[in-house]
């Protein structure tokens, strides 16, 4: 793929990014209430008009919206996301502090979700019409229908409260840990939130893989593979599934998008210190700069994932490559 192609693909992406950035600016301001309401609580009503104006100025909320919008875009261009109103510290620092925790949770969860969903989807397709398919399908759809926060609470009730196997909150012991123990403690605290995310997102790759594999099972090359005497596993995973990888790839990028919402809920239930939890707190506090920064991170991640997926499409599908050429 040459530079011209990449540039041609990048242009619509730039438009998408701009539209998303504009929405990121507008949406928090459309919600009722503003940061002063949260920070000052009922005391906001005790302020005179002049005092309220002074408070707004301190937080940069007194400028007209177009000026705020311009400052916001300029801030993004100069990598200055401003200061969080709630915490009084740079947004970039807060995001940098949290993004590692979210990556640690969300990336393996996304991979696990897609791998599990795809494998089960392929198995369900192979066993189409049989009890095995019905039971797998019922299980996956049940998991998919359960809200992530509820799954999280169930997991906590069973594995923390009843069995006492896993800690119930945080990414790290509240009182601290030392040495290699740190890795173990962090690992233990990942199990339940990751499971909640996987259960909440596994439905989509499952259905996509099941549909794609079902279509390919009727193809001649599958019959050829079977006629060659290949094992079921080889036919299913090396031939049928391989040919169905394109929709699965799409499903992976869509899963990344769904994760942005999923981590907000799951991280809040488990008091996990990632970006999702930061977003939850920022929404409650109407912390505009922090919301804009976090949404920017989500936006760029999802758009970049889609872009990469678009580029990879041609690598997986010769027809797309030929069409371009």
């Amino acid at each position, binding site marked *: 793929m040459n530079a011209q192609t990449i540039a041609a693909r990048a242009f619509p992406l730039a438009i998408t990014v701009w539209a998303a950035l504009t929405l990121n600016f507008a949406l928090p301001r459309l*919600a*009722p*209430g503003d940061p002063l*309401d*949260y*920070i*000052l*609580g*009922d*005391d*906001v*009503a*005790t302020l005179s008009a002049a*005092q309220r104006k*002074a*408070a707004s100025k*301190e937080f940069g909320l007194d400028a007209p919206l177009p000026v705020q919008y311009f400052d916001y875009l300029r801030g993004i261009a100069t990598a200055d996301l401003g200061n969080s109103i*709630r*915490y*009084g*510290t740079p947004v970039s620092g807060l995001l*940098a*502090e*949290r*993004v*590692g925790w979210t*990556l*640690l949770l969300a*990336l393996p969860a996304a991979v696990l979700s897609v791998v599990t969903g795809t494998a089960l989807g392929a198995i369900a397709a192979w066993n189409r019409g049989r009890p095995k398919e019905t039971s797998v399908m019922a299980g996956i759809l049940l998991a998919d229908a359960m809200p992530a926060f509820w799954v999280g*609470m169930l997991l*906590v009730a069973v594995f*923390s*409260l009843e069995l*006492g196997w896993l*800690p*119930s*909150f*945080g*990414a790290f012991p*509240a*009182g*601290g*840990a*030392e*040495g290699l123990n*740190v*890795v173990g403690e*962090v*690992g233990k605290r990942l199990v339940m939130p990751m499971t909640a995310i996987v259960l909440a997102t596994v439905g989509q790759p499952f259905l996509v893989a099941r549909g794609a594999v079902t279509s390919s099972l009727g193809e001649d090359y599958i019959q050829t593979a079977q006629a060659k005497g290949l094992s079921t596993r080889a036919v299913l995973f090396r031939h049928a599934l391989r040919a169905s990888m394109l929709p699965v790839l799409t499903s992976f990028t869509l899963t990344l998008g769904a994760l942005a919402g999923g981590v907000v809920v799951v991280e*809040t239930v*488990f*008091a996990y*210190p990632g970006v999702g*939890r*930061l977003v*939850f*707190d920022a929404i*409650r*506090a*109407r912390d505009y700069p922090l919301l804009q920064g976090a949404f920017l991170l989500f936006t760029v991640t999802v758009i970049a994932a889609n872009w990469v997926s678009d580029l990879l499409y041609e690598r997986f599908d010769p027809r797309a490559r030929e069409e371009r050429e």
Partner: protein
Amino acid sequence: MRRCKAPAGAGIAVGILLAALVASGCDSSVEPGTPPGAGHTARLIIGVAQDAGPLNIYTSDARFDFLVELVYDKLFAPSPYVDSPRPWLADTATAVDAETWDVTLRRGVKWQDGEAFTAADVKFTFEYFRDGPANRYTHHVSEVPRIDEVEALADYRLRFRCATPCPTLRDVTMADLPILPKHIWQGVTEPRNFSAMPIGTGPYKLVGYSAGQRYRFEANRNYFMGAPTVDELVFPVIPDQSTMFVALRTGEIDASARPLPPELLKQFQRSAEIKVVRTQALSIVELRINYERAPLNDPSVRLALSLAIDRQALVDTVLLGRGRAASHGYPHPDSPWTNPKNSASFDRQRAGIMLSEAGLVDRDGDGIRESPTGRKLAFTLKVAATEPAQLRIAELLARQFASAGVSLAVESEDQTAITKLFGSREFELYLAEIGPHGVADPDQFVVSQGSGYLWKKGLPYPEMDALTKEYIASSGKDARLDVLFRMQTLFNQRPTSFALYYPEEHWAFRRGAFDKWVESAGYGIVNKWSFLSSESRQGVIVRDPGP
């Protein structure tokens, strides 16, 4: 080939894990507390429901006083919510005349950074609160009362001169304002953007703060009232209620700074590892009224609606009896500043008569009253979606009002949107809970008559205006109480907020982790007095919480 992939994958995972730890600045080297001495506890972990920011008093409201006051001290203690606060940073406070107080300060007190605490700090604090940007404390120095002058007579002596008589200066203002270090705050021009770690004279120093995650305090071993009994306090932020109480049951935290919800009470009371104690919350769950909108601008309609509320049924049905019906009206009956004769009764028949007398009768037979112009007596009641008990209260209120021929539509919104209503006035009715600063502080009650909360400046209310003037002019504490009681009587006859119930709070903590919890009025059990020795807190009115 496959064999190589697994370790590579594991390596990536471990790499991400370690990178996350480094990037997240996780304090893996948290120093455990000094080995406990006699009567000392090394560390307590107490869950808090919300982050309060870096304890900047300009951006933390009264809900977080329990954290703020671990770091900061006041001239008198524990709070304005008791009858006679005792000297704390002050040694004495003497009324020279109706408008003047002389204060001598305790000597030998140090700020947590080692600087000496002097009269200059007190003078600076009062003037900064009076002249600088507004915060929740400022009305105590800029309005009721207005302090004209703070004069440092010597290093440890000051004179306060008020613009009007200020008999409550010692028991209210001096018991409410945290004293700031001048050497740190004098250069701060935008206090709401100040995010440095706080330095106070208090028993604990904030040594670690991860935004939205945790607070870590270390005992101030040089505290002027003696070293605290717990060496280290860690407050992880756990926003989800069920997660918080699971963590308590599993022993991941030692106590919760969030009261136990009524539905979990019996389960926790049965637990062998957890103890539950009860305190009076010194707060009110109230129905706020937009007294500027017709027909709620008619005092007789407001009183009729108040009479239509069966408060005891709310407590019995929704709180399962864990609270008190607000039959004493507003403000909180446990405050020493509240008229014991206040009342808010339930009389549906009288409510009906009063509404009919106001011309509000059911003319079309649909069960809902109408005005003479045919407008239905129907209101929208807004409630925070995050408060399940208040949602149930709202539904029950709708039924009770329906029995009086009033239609109530319940709408839920998020908490910040509800708070916004206070300033925007775009509501008819909404449910809220107001804490001790609002319902147990006499000067705040007076300020609230003009703040927009209980009444609005500029809106005619000659009877209350006259009493407010009388309050401000009265020069003795008893005289003030007399006026205040009359103001409260008038308020409850023409209510602009309906007190519904006085919540009862239950606090859960793990047995054996710590057993010196005490209640301070309005603060529950998680307050600095719990962590001071019994000798240190002598004279401060605290009590053992009830079973």
